[in-house]
């Protein structure tokens, strides 16, 4: 595709080849090639609102610990592995080698 800069020398001959005129009638308007999705499986739900959590991370940890303690313990734990999404603080006050 002919670039608007013509055949002027460039360090890498492929440098400006990704640009395409967005509108064939005005070949000087160059935009990078873009791709449109063919499906909508990855769209967010229409009523989704993304906000920052108001509680800071310290309070989040405190509440998490409190919830763990208040939940009555099962006599025999069915799951030996921690549940999903339940982050655990390091229990010991020791360094881990970086």
């Amino acid at each position, binding site marked *: 595709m002919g670039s608007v800069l013509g055949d*002027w*020398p*460039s*360090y890498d001959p492929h440098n400006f080849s990704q640009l395409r005129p967005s509108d064939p009638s005005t070949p000087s308007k160059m935009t990078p090639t873009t791709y449109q999705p063919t499906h909508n499986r990855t769209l967010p739900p229409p009523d989704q609102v993304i906000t920052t959590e*108001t*509680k*800071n*991370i*310290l*309070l989040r*940890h*405190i*509440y998490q*610990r*409190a919830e763990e*303690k*208040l*939940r*009555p*313990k*099962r*006599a025999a734990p069915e799951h030996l592995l921690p549940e999903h999404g339940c982050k655990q*603080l*390091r229990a010991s*006050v020791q*360094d881990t080698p970086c």
Partner: protein
Amino acid sequence: MLQNVHASYLMLCYLGSIFYLLVFRGNIILGGGASARALMFRSNNIVARIFERQIRTPPPGTSVHCARRFYENLVPSYTIYDVECPDHLFRKFTDDGQYLICFSRNHQELIVYRPTWLSFSCTEEDCDVHDLPPKAKKFDSFFTQLYCVSLASSNELICKDFFLYMESNRFGLFATSTAQIHDAPAVGGAIQGVPSIEKITFHLLRLEDGVVLDEKVFNDDFVNLAHNMGVFLYDDLLAIVSLRYQTVHILQIRDSGNLVDVRAIGAFCREDDELFLNSNAPSMGIRDKSKQHQLTENHVENGLQQSRLSPENAFVSGIKQRLLSFIFRGIWNEETNHTLRVQYLKKKFYFHFQDYIDLIIWKVQFLDRHHLLIKFGSVDGAVSRTTDHHPAFFAVYNMETTDIVAFYQNNADELYLLFEHFCDHFHTTSKNSLYMNFISSHSNNIHTREQLRSLRNKATSSSQFVKKMLASLPINSQALSPSPYFDQSLYRFDEKLISAADRHRQSTDHPIKFILRRPPQTLRFKIKPGPEGGNIDNRTKKISSFLFHPFLPFALSIQQTLFLQPSAVNVHFRR
């Protein structure tokens, strides 16, 4: 015609070669080799750094850190010894650097100065050689007095260690109090063992012109005013701990300058608790808490010989009730087996029940607008200086839901881990003060973290170490100076002689050195308190305090002896 073609051809060749050079060569400079380039261009020369700042953006998120590196170049290296200054008690610079707060020696007046800078000109060739003109070496050339306001009336004194600054509106909060009365009788709901002050007044001033906007008075009460211990400012919310009546008063500072009561947590948690309890249980004398206290100690008073289960003394209300029920529920939920539950309750709860009942609120801080971190302890430890031997507990309280969220003892590893990982969230700041995020703590600075690690490794007992670290919680409001010269990633200095905390220290004759952290790790400047030639009299103990301007290369060092002699004030600035 041929000439024109020839000329234009030459022109094209010339332009083409320029373009070729720019693009071809430009790629080498602009492209790879970032680290090599950094080494090449990271110079300590200030001009080189300014040029670097013009052409390169710092890595994402580090623009403030890169800007602070200029404080390695601009240092308060010049000292004017023993400046002639008015005999005031210099308290501190406000955190936005606009005002210097001072109190008069008789603790009754407030004097506010505005920090300015020297202005004199030198028209000769080499000005550095010349010493400063004698006019410059005065206090007045650095500060202009704005006003002098009398805050305390005849029998009151301004508490010289208390000052809170609300940066958004430029309001200052000061406190005046009458004399302390020890061994005050415990009347009207007060607890025994805490001294009483007849009148404590909090004054809210607009610092621009010294107008007193509002006042809040506490009568026959006790608030720990030293070093802002009993009062915490978060944004526009104030938490004042009344030790004597065991209440945390939450106040809001409005933009108009009014101090508005929001709630009082202690005997009652919600605003309508008192009404509810009074209307539903008129026979219960909860107003008469002193009677309740005396009965629990099994005193026989006025012939009343009621058992411990009588309604008057078994009714615990307010935050104490929340705390006890939280502890109870925690122990109850640990075990599903009923007999074991009861056993644990007996051992862990009822055995210590009287100790839990006797706990009092020591200190409070905000964790965010709705959560308080409350430190509980015994009555003896409330006013003593060393709190190591007294058991202490921490509770996180949600003011909106009036729930206790967490309860820890002061040697709890869990709380220490939270403190270690999220120290900055304990130093709660308002949204307006960005500089607070850069005060070195072990959560945001690797050198402070290393210091903490080495302390931990050296500690003989883990539980003692945890107790010592947690003793600093809840933190004092506005206790640390935001000056970049205390930034541990810029400078290394002796923490025992000087630090960001504004406490008095032992004074030495040797100057305090500030050494660069980064290569070349040289000594950058020294701060020497006291007169230039050292002290003549080495026997008397001297204490020094330092006031650093938050962002200018300017500091005051004040050396005092303990005998009310006038202090020696030195000015350190960049000449």
